């Protein structure tokens, strides 16, 4: 079969058209309603006094399971204080200060525990998992291959890698699910917070509380609960008195990137039909071509005088 250029473009056109159809959000794949029974945290930046007790408690509780170490400041060679400057391979949660001339606010960074987490969607070996009941996004170092695709995928740059170790792992908040949550029923940071800036509970309750606070003191808050709709919703919610972008919480679309990528990926690989069809079609064409030519190698036109390999005489 000699494929004509026309037929090639026909196929290419059909493939292209199918692709365009696939990229349109299908009615059937609308994102599921937010799971408001999942566990989450509400951090109210207007209540936070920046004491960093949450950071200390987090490291104390999770140091052993998470492989966390103190991060010494340059003036402190003996590492007496823990002084991380950002989330890192040693720090799951961090308080930062945002200061302008008259306005200032603390902000606590940690895993957002997305409703549709990108890290879980991309992890090739299920090292990142989302608990179907609690909604906790957890990490298993025993499965992780260290490819760092979760870091590429996370819109909040939350998963951190231990670059300086020969046996590294990914570090991120898991709501103390194997430590404090198990023993005391709530994450260490929420337990120690002296001002109740960190509330722990079900997402639905936290959302209601957040909206009530905004309603009660509208002059105090930015009228938005960060995490309610961002990339499909997160279980870690924020209230603040200054715009969220200034606190390092990026402006994000409502659609979860994971929904977008999975829609395209699944359209191509649905039921593994396309790859099998591709293989079958290719095989039929290739088999016909080689049969027609008598062998899968003998060039038909290029060398008409060519005789098959001449048997050698023994030396």
């Amino acid at each position, binding site marked *: 079969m000699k494929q004509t250029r026309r037929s090639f473009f026909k196929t290419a056109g059909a493939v292209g058209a199918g692709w365009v159809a696939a990229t349109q959000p299908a009615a059937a794949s609308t994102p599921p309603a937010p799971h408001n029974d999942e566990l989450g945290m509400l951090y109210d930046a207007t209540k936070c006094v920046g004491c960093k007790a949450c950071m200390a408690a987090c490291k104390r509780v999770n140091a052993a399971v998470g492989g966390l170490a103190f991060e010494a400041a340059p003036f402190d060679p003996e590492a007496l204080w823990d002084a991380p400057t950002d989330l890192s391979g040693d720090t799951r949660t961090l308080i930062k200060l945002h200061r302008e001339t008259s306005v200032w606010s603390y902000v606590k960074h940690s895993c957002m525990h997305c409703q549709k987490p990108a890290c879980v969607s991309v992890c090739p070996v299920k090292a990142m998992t989302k608990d179907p009941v609690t909604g906790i996004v957890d990490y298993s170092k025993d*499965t992780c291959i260290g490819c760092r695709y979760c870091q590429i995928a996370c819109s909040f740059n939350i998963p951190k890698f231990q670059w300086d170790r020969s046996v590294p792992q990914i570090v991120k908040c898991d709501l103390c699910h194997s430590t404090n949550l198990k023993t005391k029923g709530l994450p260490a940071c929420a337990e120690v917070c002296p001002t109740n800036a960190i509330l722990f509970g079900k997402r639905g309750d936290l959302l209601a509380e957040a909206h009530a606070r905004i309603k009660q003191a509208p002059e105090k808050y930015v009228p938005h609960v960060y995490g309610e709709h961002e990339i499909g919703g997160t279980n870690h919610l924020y209230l603040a008195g200054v715009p969220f972008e200034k606190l390092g919480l990026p402006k994000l679309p409502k659609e979860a990137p994971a929904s977008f990528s999975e829609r395209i990926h699944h359209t*191509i690989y649905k039921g593994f039909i396309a790859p099998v069809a591709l293989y079958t079609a290719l095989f039929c064409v290739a088999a016909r*071509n080689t049969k027609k030519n008598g062998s899968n190698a003998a*060039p038909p036109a290029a060398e008409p005088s060519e005789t098959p390999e001449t048997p*050698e005489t023994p030396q």
Partner: protein
Amino acid sequence: MGHHQFQKQKGRILTKSFFVLLTLVAVGMFFIAVRIVKGIGAVSNMSDGYPWGIWIAYDVATGTAIACGGYAVAILVYIRNRMHYHPLMRSCILTSMFGYGLAGFSVMVDLGRPWNAYNFFVPSKWQFNSAMFEVALCVMAYSTVLIIEFLPAILYSMEKSRWVRFRKFMDWLHPRLVPDKEAILDKIEWVRAGAGWLRPRLEKVLLFFIVLGIALPTMHQSSLGSMLLIAATKLHPLWHTPFLPLLFLINCIYIGYAIVILESIISSHAFRRPFEVQQLAGLAGLIPWLATLWLVVVVGDLAYRGQLTAAGSLDRYSCLFLAEFALLATGALLLLPPRQRRSPRWLFVSAALIVSGGALYRFNVYLIGFNPGEGWIYFPSLAEIMISVGIVALELLGYQVFVKMVPVLPRVALDEPKPAASVDPTPSPSGWQPRPQTS
């Protein structure tokens, strides 16, 4: 299987370039050792913002595209039925084999916890939402398929070779270490018989693998594009499009043809063989079509998403986008006049433009257009670059050695009456009969 279409390259293996490349490999291996002992941060400039550096952007994303010669030519030969390109097949498969094998190797260097990589073979760990899972399995399968596709060439030379180098080595050993020569020669006969037994059987089922060798790259090259679909909030809108998989697929095919042209011209030059202008001109004729298709998809998609102004805004991203666009368009335009397609010099220039444009596209998607937010910068460290250089050097080294040990390169002067006797320095052993051509 048409073994008469190929020949071994004559010459010494231990040349000057062999030792130069070997030095580079050694330097790379040294830094890999440092990486293993002290962690990735000790040798690379990767960070939590840029968790993938050149090991992924070059060695995997670009390296496997450059290794797509075998795929692109196989489409031409077996699907589009252009059998006269078959003599190019073996060197393409060889470079693809090295390209993919070493991409896999650099992934193992890049992985933080490679000892857990066995999880790819544990069905309960399979994660079908992950484009990387698809890429990983496909690349592993394809590397295996490439080895199987190349095996007949190795078996053929094991069967027909006089084992000159091996015998010389034994003679060199002789005064120091006296091997039982008779027993070893006996074993060689054994190996030869085994190879002779296996090869026709393998060639009978080879078509299954050849077609797998076309289906698998179609799957994983498009999935290499799908990998960055997730970075919706990080990858610049010039490159983040639902068409990423399609663009990566077309991209690897034109890079494939262009790299075959480049490799053929370079190896003809290096090994002082005549240029294969006839076949290369044919390949070159396909490139403008593919480039047009690609550019149409790119521009149409940008227009559809309303990003054409961003493409022309001449900021850093726009400039790199235009550079990639211009490299490809110029390369394709240069190949339009048939006369230029027959000139090795023009072929070389335009193929180089096409490869660099296509490679720049992949760099743009994986690294340059990727912006994790303020405060993050990435430029590869010297050690990081030397590891990549070492891996490329290993690839070139392997190619150099293989073409001298196995009949890989297209036979010169195809229409000589007794090609096997006149050019091949390794005559067949006794008792070998031409067999009817299989499948």
